[in-house]
């Protein structure tokens, strides 16, 4: 077992590794980018001693699509169809942040109904995304029934998305100025029905996963994040909340309709993989509760789009803005710079996966049993597509 070097980087990466890799004691294992235990297309270069990981180096670059550059050559309205592709499992947060940034720069006030419709979409997205994580979480600890249940129930949420937005994955619903349509007739009843089915499934999952001897034995004590590490590594979202840091943008700096909604920030103390899973599990319930509140309280008529100039030659005055929202993994930010032309001067997308999947993963992997690497990675809930815009 090795000590981390002074810079905090693994020795095999910085070149000052103390390990004698030709000693015959170590094996290098390349995990990913197609390994099912990796959350998307990235890979880990692991140095293993026996079955213990002694060094970990992360590799990204398999998913680079150059969105930020592409968006500098497209008009403000065209970009709205692109941003959803930046984080595949969570398009809505990208749609919202892009629209909010454009509105901020163009000085557009979104009507009340659109605010609620956007909040509803964001929570539905959180629910769908967490259900997908739940599936991955079960699978990475060998519980292969859970992904089937969780992903099937995620599809019920996607059904709701389909009827509201017209699409299941790339919704392209939140458009600069508002949203594209209101709720269809009977949505409230169908959404309530889906929430009941998901809650029933969650009850079973709680019993099968969280009261499961195997899961407990493997996840407890895995990948402990101390409260001191939180700011040092830039850790946000459930990863930070499980360490007892009650940070949640929805509460701390309420945006959209969150200021009007009733919810508590879920936190934990143990800060291991089990605790993080438990915090997320609470947030799934929280999302369902928020969706229920919203479909009861949201305005059902009125405009859902603020007047926008002709989008074909929409110019936005020079300026810059940073907007942020709490996605399932923590603070998600969009930084936009405009120069008064019909195009963006610069856009930067900052997702939480960048720190979680690279710096933090390299730190936490050390000392872990190689069989738990997948579980550790899923417990950090990272999306490589948002690392590589």
């Amino acid at each position, binding site marked *: 077992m090795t000590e981390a070097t002074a810079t905090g980087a693994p020795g095999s990466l910085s070149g000052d590794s103390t390990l004698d890799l030709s000693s015959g004691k170590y094996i290098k294992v390349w995990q990913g980018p197609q390994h099912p235990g990796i959350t998307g297309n990235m890979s880990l270069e692991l140095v293993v001693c026996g079955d213990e990981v002694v060094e970990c180096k992360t590799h990204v670059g398999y998913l680079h699509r150059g969105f930020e550059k592409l968006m500098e050559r*497209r*008009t403000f*309205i*065209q970009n709205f*169809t*692109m941003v959803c592709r930046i984080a595949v499992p969570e398009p809505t947060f990208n749609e919202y942040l892009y629209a909010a940034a454009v509105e901020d720069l163009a000085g557009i006030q979104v009507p009340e109904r659109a605010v609620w419709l956007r909040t509803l979409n964001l929570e539905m997205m959180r629910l769908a995304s967490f259900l997908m994580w739940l599936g991955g979480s079960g699978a990475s600890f060998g*519980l292969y*029934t859970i992904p089937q*249940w969780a992903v*099937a*129930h995620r*599809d019920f949420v996607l*059904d709701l998305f*389909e*009827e*509201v*937005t*017209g*699409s299941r994955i*790339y919704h*392209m619903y939140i458009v600069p100025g*508002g949203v*594209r*349509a*209101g709720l*269809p007739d009977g949505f409230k009843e169908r959404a309530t029905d889906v929430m009941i089915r998901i809650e029933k499934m969650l009850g*079973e999952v709680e*019993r*099968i996963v969280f*009261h*499961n*001897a*195997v899961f*407990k*034995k493997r996840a407890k004590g895995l990948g402990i994040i101390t409260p001191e590490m939180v700011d040092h590594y830039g850790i946000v979202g459930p990863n930070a909340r499980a360490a007892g840091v009650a940070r949640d943008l929805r509460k701390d700096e309420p945006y959209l309709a969150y200021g009007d909604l009733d919810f508590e920030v879920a936190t934990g103390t143990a800060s291991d993989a089990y605790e993080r899973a438990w915090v997320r599990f609470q947030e799934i319930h929280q999302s369902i509760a928020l969706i229920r509140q919203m479909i009861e309280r949201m305005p059902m008529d009125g*405009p*859902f*789009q603020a*007047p*926008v*100039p*002709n*989008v*074909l*030659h929409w110019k936005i005055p020079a300026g810059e803005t940073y907007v942020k929202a709490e996605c399932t993994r923590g603070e998600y930010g969009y930084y936009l710079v405009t120069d008064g032309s019909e195009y963006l001067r610069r856009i930067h997308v900052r997702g939480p996966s960048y720190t979680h999947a690279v710096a933090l993963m390299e730190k936490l992997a050390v000392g872990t049993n190689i069989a738990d690497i997948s579980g550790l990675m899923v417990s950090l809930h990272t999306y490589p597509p948002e690392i590589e815009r």
Partner: protein
Amino acid sequence: MNLKDLLSPFYVWQRAFEKPLTSLRPIEERPGAPRYRGFHINEVGTCVGCGTCKLICQNHAIDMVEVEGLEPRGGDSGLRPRFDYGRCCWCALCVDICPTSSLRMSNQYAWLTDDPDEFRFVAGVDAKSWNAHELGYRRDKDYHLVPTKRLEMPMVPPGEGLKSFDEVVKGYSAEQAKLEADRCIECGICVATCPAHMEVPDYIRTVREGDLEEGLRILYRTNPFSATCGRICTHRCEEVCPVGAQGDPLAIRWLKRYIVDQVPLADYRRILGDEIPTESGKKVAIIGAGPGGMSAAYYLRKRGHAVTVYETQQKGGGMLRYGVPSYRLPDDQLDKDIDYIVSLGVEVKYGTKVGVDVQFTELLEGFDAVYIGTGVNVPTKMRVNGEDHPRVLSGPQVLSDVAKGKDPGVGKNIAVIGGGNVAMDCARVSRRLGAEVTILYRRRIEDMPADSEEIHESQAEGCRIVQRAIPVEILRAESDAQVTIKWGEAEMVPDPKGGRPRPVLQEDRVHEDTFDSIISAIGQAGDYGFIPVAERDKLEIKWGKLLPRDYQHTTLEKVFVGGDIANDVADAISAIEDGHHAARGIHQLLAGTAEAGVERKP
């Protein structure tokens, strides 16, 4: 660890007895949601081929292609969008932006074929199983990517307007003009529709970008009467503007006016860069200083030819001056256009009537080419008994008297016969002279050839319009200062051949009304009296119009013709285009060469 934690995983078995959540495709179909963004459907009959879908598509998945068997209507490019599903990302921005809402999507999402070329198809034209689907994504009626409302034009209130002959339309402010110009989708359907093919999207862009000098240059490429046309053009461009399908069309005419209004005449020469080229030594005579003749003069003078214009009246402009009241087109604006043309060295002989003061044959002998732009000045008869009554006035005469500052003496209670712009102008002029006005028109208001603004403003100013009223006879009234008209109600009978409905007089519903005067404004015809019989016999004249050939050439070698006397549309913009086109033809004749790229577009 406790026993419960060891046993609880076995609860998964309870789901083994439940109905599976998966569906049995393809045995069971699962239709997309009613709003699903599936395959494209285009209602080809509603689509005008404006190409805005292609413009907004960030994937370049849309081409505009010609469709076999599609007969383009007016205001239709004849092209239709072809989709490439190798590129499409189903964002539906094309549906959202579609001005006519002809484009939508079906909720069908599965399509299997072994021929990849099939995935490129013309929606609504190529037979597809989903073409008749009702369900699928459509743009919500409250959701727009282009502002639908026109910026309201500041106007003098109707009550105020009646007190004077001052201009009623005030014109846009800079801010209003920019906002209005912002609504343009740059499809160019207007360019194809404008008789002069003015480059509308290009000059609208100059308003948006604040480069009005460039705007003026673009205007003068096709129209040297822009101050005039910016006020009184019949704006067929606006009738076909696809933006109007969801709300109001672009105020193209007012934007043109905005450009011209912002540029003082003194700056024209510098901005337009019109240097008089070397004199060609050729001379052209133009008969009539109306919009057509003066356009021809402008474009000929720019090519270096010496131009002499013969005008009967004391001032130029023709029907623009003597037929259009000054509250629509103030004299100083018309003067602005004409003065600029004259300033290039065009000689205008006012008060000179061809056939009286100078003979047509003299022009043929003394000049290298002659352009006839005399217009139509002889009022058409109503063809009813008694219409030579002294209290039956001619519409053009009334307008001309008013333009010259004379009182036409219409009286206090008058009737106007007709539904064209001349009739509306007579009615509104009479209102300003203090008369109560009744307009009798043989068809319905929606059939009136007058501009819709003119009709609305007439009504706003208190003119009463009686629809489906056919004059039957003019009778003597008790007093010689009055006249009685016998008119009958008409029923509209549909034309079995599909033409426009025909009014048919109802003999049992005939009324008699007495007025101080009746203004007949049902049309005018050309007067060929100034052309000697020998020459006249060589010309082709049909239905009172002189038939032009290519480049407005007549059958006489040196003679060209244009304007109301040669086209059926009889509006200013057509006359301007005739003049411009004739200038090209005359230049070819004089220079002996064909100019490249001047073939007239259909």
